[in-house]
């Protein structure tokens, strides 16, 4: 390693006080400066932080955005989500190949550009998209991408056609992206103008008991997927007698097809921070963390500025709203590319500078979480709901939606529809209603809740979007009748294969086997017994995995087997005298024939000893 590289490592470690718990931040700084975290850097970081080298290596290799070999000065990550693939992904890949002469996984000879693929970056409503270092761009066309590359070559900066004129706060000088918000419908959360932003003020006058009681009365359930009652989680943390507690906002938003948290952080960051502060008031926490997925790092400067502003206004820090003993502050923890870090126990480990591997429960994070302190983790949208509840009142909130799913929900709508974007509706509307709103005329399948949710067909379009029926964290991806369902299923299972943390064998290995069997069926070599196999293996994975990823990863297969049985049936082969149609003896022997310079006595009919 040359000296400058090792200087970068020293600076990074010093900036974070040689604190092993800030390993993610240290690695980020090294990655940014050196464009990689190589073997020498690992050794140096280990020495500086006192961690075993193997632990540093374990963390660095866990996350997608740290690389052991150098990335380009402009590291391009092309989003290869299924929606992007159906909307121009291949054209972009061709442009990259043409302009730069490299394929994914490669770097140009001059070290200027590298190209890689990455799962959903949260731009499904404006595909295809990509990341370049801290920049993000959507709605790309081949021409736009060529211009972007030329800008970067010329000025080391994406030109104004990528950084100016974004919708709403996207155009803010601290964000500067050309992204769209695509907010199609506003409700209690996104606001319709007359709301007063007074939730925190109201809550600061209440005791923890009163806050928890209000949340209970509101019926609010978490918006991140599982729908756990918010007051209960906060209440558990509140009851712990410890020196301090922690409130974490989960902005990992890794579920393919979800992007509403991105829009909330762009347009309503104060509402999010307000909700976190109220939650802290309820549990008695003084530490707050916003766990921001690396894909959204373009929002960091904006969010930091909002935090600074709130500190200046006395809305964060000590004596918040002038209330004695109400102390709370928030730091931003940048993730580094790992879907599993959205799972709350993995997220906490990641905040502590570790590998994002889920932990076994109990203890629940609300009892023992970040650095051993009681920690509540909630979704971005959940915090917005909390803030609004203290603004409009629990009763008004509870009147919206259905009995078990109160309030409104933000849906991230994308795919084959004319009006993709964010829709806020009270819980309980039907799939068909949402399809009508987004003008999806030829919807044949909808992915509700992302890969870990359900893939439903036309017969299910009258089902309701709420916890009582189709629970969802908000992803709503529409596919029209020209789309190949099994290709979608395959892409999602591949996603889980890539994102499994690898701790449990059924998840790490099982998903690979699911994928293999899907490939066999897609290739037209499957039989009915393969379907039985898929079901059995799916059950095993669900039953024996440790965390939500394994509990849900077989769902794309299970839900399509239930809702699209004919798609599978059309591809299955009739059994053939007990032989497996997937096995091709001729192909299996080719290599040996070639190596041995002879044919097969058993399988070459005209066997005569040697072949050419």
């Amino acid at each position, binding site marked *: 390693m040359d000296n400058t590289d090792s200087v970068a490592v020293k600076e990074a470690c010093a900036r974070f006080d040689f604190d092993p718990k800030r390993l993610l931040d240290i690695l980020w700084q090294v990655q940014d400066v050196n464009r990689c975290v190589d073997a020498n850097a690992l050794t140096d970081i280990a020495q500086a932080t006192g961690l075993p080298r193997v632990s540093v290596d374990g963390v660095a290799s866990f996350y997608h955005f740290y690389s052991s070999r150098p990335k380009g000065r402009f590291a391009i990550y092309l989003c290869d989500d299924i929606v992007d693939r159906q909307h121009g992904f291949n054209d972009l890949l061709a442009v990259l190949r043409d302009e730069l002469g490299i394929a994914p996984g490669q770097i140009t000879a001059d070290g200027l550009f590298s190209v890689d693929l990455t799962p959903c970056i949260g731009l499904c409503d404006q595909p295809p998209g990509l990341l370049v270092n801290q920049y993000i761009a959507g709605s790309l066309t081949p021409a736009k991408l060529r211009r972007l590359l030329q800008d970067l070559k010329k000025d080391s900066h994406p030109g104004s056609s990528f950084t100016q004129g974004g919708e709403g706060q996207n155009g803010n000088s601290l964000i500067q992206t050309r992204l769209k918000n695509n907010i199609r419908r506003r409700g209690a959360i996104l606001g319709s103008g007359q709301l007063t932003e007074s939730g925190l003020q109201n809550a600061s006058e209440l005791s923890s008991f009163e806050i928890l009681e209000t949340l209970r009365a509101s019926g609010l359930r978490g918006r991140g997927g599982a729908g756990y009652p918010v007051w209960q989680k906060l209440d558990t943390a509140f009851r712990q007698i410890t020196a301090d507690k922690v409130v974490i906002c989960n902005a990992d938003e890794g579920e393919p097809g979800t992007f509403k948290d991105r829009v909330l952080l762009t347009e309503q960051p104060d509402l999010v921070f307000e909700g976190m502060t109220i939650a802290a008031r309820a549990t008695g926490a003084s530490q707050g963390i916003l766990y921001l997925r690396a894909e959204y790092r373009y929002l960091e400067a904006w969010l930091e500025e909002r935090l600074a502003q709130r500190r200046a206004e006395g809305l964060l820090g000590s004596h918040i709203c002038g209330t004695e003993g109400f102390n709370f502050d928030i730091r931003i923890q940048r993730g580094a590319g790992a879907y599993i870090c959205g799972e709350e126990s993995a997220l906490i480990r990641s905040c502590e500078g570790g590998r994002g591997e889920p932990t076994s429960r109990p203890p629940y994070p609300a009892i023992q979480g970040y650095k051993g302190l009681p920690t509540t983790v909630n979704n971005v949208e959940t915090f917005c709901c909390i803030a609004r509840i203290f603004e409009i009142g629990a009763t008004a909130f509870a009147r919206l939606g259905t009995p078990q799913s109160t309030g409104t929900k933000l849906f991230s709508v994308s795919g084959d529809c004319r009006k993709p974007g964010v829709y806020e509706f009270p819980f309980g509307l039907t799939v068909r209603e949402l399809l009508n709103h987004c003008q999806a005329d030829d919807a044949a399948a909808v992915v509700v809740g992302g890969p870990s949710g359900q893939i439903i067909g036309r017969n299910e379009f009258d089902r309701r979007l709420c916890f009582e029926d189709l629970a969802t964290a908000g992803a709503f991806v529409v596919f029209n009748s020209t789309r190949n369902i099994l290709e979608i299923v395959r892409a999602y299972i591949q996603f889980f294969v890539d994102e499994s943390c690898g701790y449990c064998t059924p998840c790490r290995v099982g998903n690979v086997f699911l994928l293999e069997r899907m490939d066999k069926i897609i290739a037209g070599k499957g039989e009915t017994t393969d379907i039985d196999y898929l079901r059995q293996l799916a059950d095993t994975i669900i039953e024996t995995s440790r965390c939500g990823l394994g509990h849900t990863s077989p769902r794309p297969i299970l839900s399509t087997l239930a809702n699209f049985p004919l798609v599978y049936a059309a591809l299955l082969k009739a059994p053939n005298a007990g032989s497996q149609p997937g096995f091709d003896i001729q192909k299996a022997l080719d290599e*040996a024939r070639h190596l041995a310079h*002879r044919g097969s006595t058993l399988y070459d009919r005209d066997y005569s000893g040697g072949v050419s």
Partner: protein
Amino acid sequence: MKKKKRLATASLAGCFGCHMSLLDMDERLLEVLEHVEFDRSPLMDFKGFRQRCDIGLIEGGCCNEDNVHVLRQFRENCDVLVAIGQCAIMGGLPVMRNAIMHADDPLRECLEEAYNESPRVLNPGNHIPNDPALPLLLDKVYTCSEVVHIDFQIPGCPPSGDTLYQVLMALATGKKPEFSYGMIKYD
């Protein structure tokens, strides 16, 4: 007397450990023989099927063309085909060569490693066995169920004599083999 079931067994890419385990039934083998009689099997040294069988037991997966040939004969000639042992079910030790799948020529690389490049091999002529009598190797090792339909898979390396006894007694009396958890738990 009731007609005995006919039983055939074969060892493909296995170590014969599973067949040894059959012998581990000890004196219960006599009890089993009251219900079944052997057809083609290494235990009898019959090389071909004498008549159609009720039960076939397969040890080992498929690493060469002969394995495939034998396995297909078993499928054609047995009503119920049972894969016994890890090799038959998952490939076992032989399947480790499938890890070389990213090479351009994985089989060549595997043979080179085995006969020439391995640190403790002395093979001055760099000779890789290629007698015409040797069956051709497959490109990789296949499990039994990748090649033919398998009705039951009995895990273990090898499954214990107790387990195999239960399998045979169940099948001989027309039942589905079932085990207590302890019998198929290997830790």
